[in-house]
């Protein structure tokens, strides 16, 4: 399945590092419990279609139980606890994630389909770092700029997506817990396992029962949780379409809301850019995590005079990427997370062709089992085509061109989204001009897809509101945070 000139011997990470139970219950009140209506669903490895485990599907009674457990823990344990004690629990969690990092990385690659080098080098270390960062805020909130004695909101309902299962759980839980809230977390239907190992870590850390509750299930479980009247705060990461439903569901209630939704980011390359670096940045921007990234650089805006050469260099680079077993340390591109997502990518890519764009993928043989889509580049794309407007959430890049910086700004902003953007130029003044005029929550200059717990992340416009990360990330979980 390697399609470069050199064949690499497989370098497989040890699958045996993960000891999966055949069946997982719900994590409520510090214990593993069976779902009250007895429903379970299977979670499948997208690279092999192997059933990894069965997982409980939480119904309304289970969600209610979890919210009540969180409320009790908020009132009796976590709310009254001094910040410096909360901090120590979070430091324990951060350390335990580091200690179990290899196991978590393998598990994440199995359940999600992402290459082990990404789960090992990005997802897991950043998850640990996020807990470590917010642990330090727990006893310093009076210095955070939200008043002398900022107060938590209560019970937070947190619904996370399947693209970075553990990392998104960490982004949600760490700031909520640091500020004194308790949580009910709903992992994504197709990637529940790393959150369930996180539950084990909470037990090992002696986190008081009910401070974090984890209810697995599909969209219905999430909708029940969001609508539960005992919830004070809703934090959702996922598609803009579902985000709007969440916003409608909390309308007219007392619940505070933050949304981290979709994107259609422009990655803008000027003719003075360091081209080989830019090529690496474009590849990282759209093919990192199979393009299952809300901030993916899915629209390449190339300045007209370098566009042809840039696309040629990009195609050469893509021909060296290795697609295949996520547990192989040589693998650059893993599996598409689910058959549903694969069908969506296939549908939109076919639309791109039928609307007249020119489709290209490197010659490569897709594995026979599992869900796969080759890295794909569309050229001759016009801004009106659907592949230039809709979030594909897959390894599909649309190439557009521009002549002037003003035109690049206009095209970059010609979207309902506003999550991220990339700017490639050696001219500092131009970088700052572009950064100030692009409507996006994160702008990467001469780099792409960098994340850090101290760096606020979140969108403009229909990419959502509220920030995760940094001092600003505390606001979503504090009274008078805004």
């Amino acid at each position, binding site marked *: 399945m390697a399609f470069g000139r050199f064949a690499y011997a497989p370098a497989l990470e040890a699958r045996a590092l993960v000891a999966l139970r055949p069946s997982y219950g719900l994590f409520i009140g510090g214990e593993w419990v069976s779902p009250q209506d007895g429903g379970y669903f299977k979670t499948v490895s997208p690279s092999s279609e192997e059933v990894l485990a069965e997982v409980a599907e939480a119904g309304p009674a289970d969600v209610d139980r979890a919210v009540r457990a969180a409320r009790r823990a908020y009132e009796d344990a976590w709310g009254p606890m001094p910040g410096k004690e909360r901090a120590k629990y979070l430091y324990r969690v951060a350390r335990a994630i580091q200690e179990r990092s290899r196991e978590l990385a393998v598990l994440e690659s199995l359940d999600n389909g992402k290459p082990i080098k990404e789960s090992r080098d990005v997802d897991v270390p950043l998850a640990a770092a996020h807990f470590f960062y917010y642990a330090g805020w727990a006893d310093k909130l009076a210095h955070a700029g939200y008043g002398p004695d900022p107060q938590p909101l209560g019970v937070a309902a947190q619904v996370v997506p399947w693209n970075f299962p553990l990392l998104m759980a960490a982004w949600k839980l760490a700031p909520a817990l640091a500020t004194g809230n308790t949580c009910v977390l709903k992992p994504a239907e197709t990637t529940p396992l790393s959150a369930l190992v996180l539950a084990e870590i909470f037990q090992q850390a002696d986190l008081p029962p009910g401070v974090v509750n984890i209810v697995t299930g599909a969209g219905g479980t999430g909708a029940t949780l969001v609508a539960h009247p005992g919830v004070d705060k809703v934090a959702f990461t996922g598609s803009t379409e579902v985000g709007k439903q969440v916003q409608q569901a909390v*309308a007219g209630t007392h619940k505070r809301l933050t949304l981290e939704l979709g994107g259609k980011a422009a990655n803008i390359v000027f003719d003075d850019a360091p081209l080989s670096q830019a090529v690496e940045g474009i590849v990282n921007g759209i093919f990192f995590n199979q393009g299952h990234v809300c901030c993916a650089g899915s629209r390449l805006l190339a300045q007209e005079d370098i566009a042809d050469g840039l696309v040629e260099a990009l195609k050469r680079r893509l021909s060296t990427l290795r697609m295949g077993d996520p547990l192989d340390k040589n693998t650059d591109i893993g599996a598409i997370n689910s058959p549903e997502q694969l069908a969506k990518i296939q549908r939109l890519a076919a639309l791109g062709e039928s609307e007249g764009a020119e489709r290209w993928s490197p010659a490569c043989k897709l594995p026979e089992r599992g869900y796969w889509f080759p890295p794909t580049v569309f050229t001759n794309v016009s801004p009106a085509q659907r592949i230039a407007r809709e979030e594909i959430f897959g390894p599909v890049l649309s190439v557009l061109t521009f002549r002037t910086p003003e035109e690049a700004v206009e095209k970059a902003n010609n979207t309902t989204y506003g999550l991220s953007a990339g700017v490639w130029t050696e001219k500092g003044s131009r970088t700052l001009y572009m950064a100030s005029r692009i409507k996006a929550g994160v702008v990467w200059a001469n780099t792409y897809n960098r994340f850090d717990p101290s760096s606020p992340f979140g969108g*403009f416009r229909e990419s959502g509101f509220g920030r995760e990360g940094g001092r*600003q990330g505390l606001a979503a979980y504090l009274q008078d945070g805004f």
Partner: protein
Amino acid sequence: MDELAEAPTGRLRVRKTYKLYVNGAFVRSESGRSYKVCAADGQFLAHAAWASRKDVRDAVVAARKAQPNWANATAYLRGQVLYRAAEMLEGRTGQLAESVALAEGLSRPQAFATVGAAVDRLTWYAGWPDKLAQVAGSTNPVAGPYFNFSVPEPTGVVGILAPTGSSLLGLVSVLAPVIVTGNSAVVVASEDRPLPAIEFAEVLATSDLPAGVVNILTGRATELAPVLAAHRDIDGLDLAGAPDGLGGSLERAAAGNVKRVMRQRLPEPEWPADPGTGRMLFFTETKTVWHPIGL
């Protein structure tokens, strides 16, 4: 008639036609409609323009067009303009006090105190544009060779349902924090007390505020609020003066394009209190920029 309303000389007063304030101009409603406005004690005061859906859309077009240049103006300049508005309001204290007294049924000293508080509020906000980024922004010590900074930027076009009770101080208290950061605004004035808002528009019109940054409509809130809430080219919505019982449905409509919605607080807040930074920050977006550090 109230002594404040009629000059003591016995001379017949020239009455004002109250219009909408859209794109820097005073215009009648395109619908040609008007509605009767009475003082708190029930006496007839004037006819106000009864804005239509089309007037809302025109105002949004003006606000959208004006917003980028206003946001890209220097923070210093935005502060200067707000301060100029405070100066202009100070100079029209008598006129506004008369108007507020009639609208809200206040005594003369109460009305003057209210206008004074509105002047002071504008002055307070005039000092914020060149400070907010220093308070709410940051440089972020990321684990890598990058210079990383975050700044608050304006949300864009904000729809405001002005408080229904406090017709001037309430209006200034919700409008100033929206525009100081570089947003533009489409305001629906208090339906029963619209005249102070239009007189305040006269203050803005003489304050070097670029046309379209603030647009003020008068009319039926139940008719105009749903148009604002559902409008796809509005980015944020302040429900301060939402009609009774409509808050939830307006918020649902606003979800259509993921508007930032500031919910209504009931009862209406005590506007003279220290406003804090909350209203400014609510209609800003944190932008974070990464740049490599290297040789």
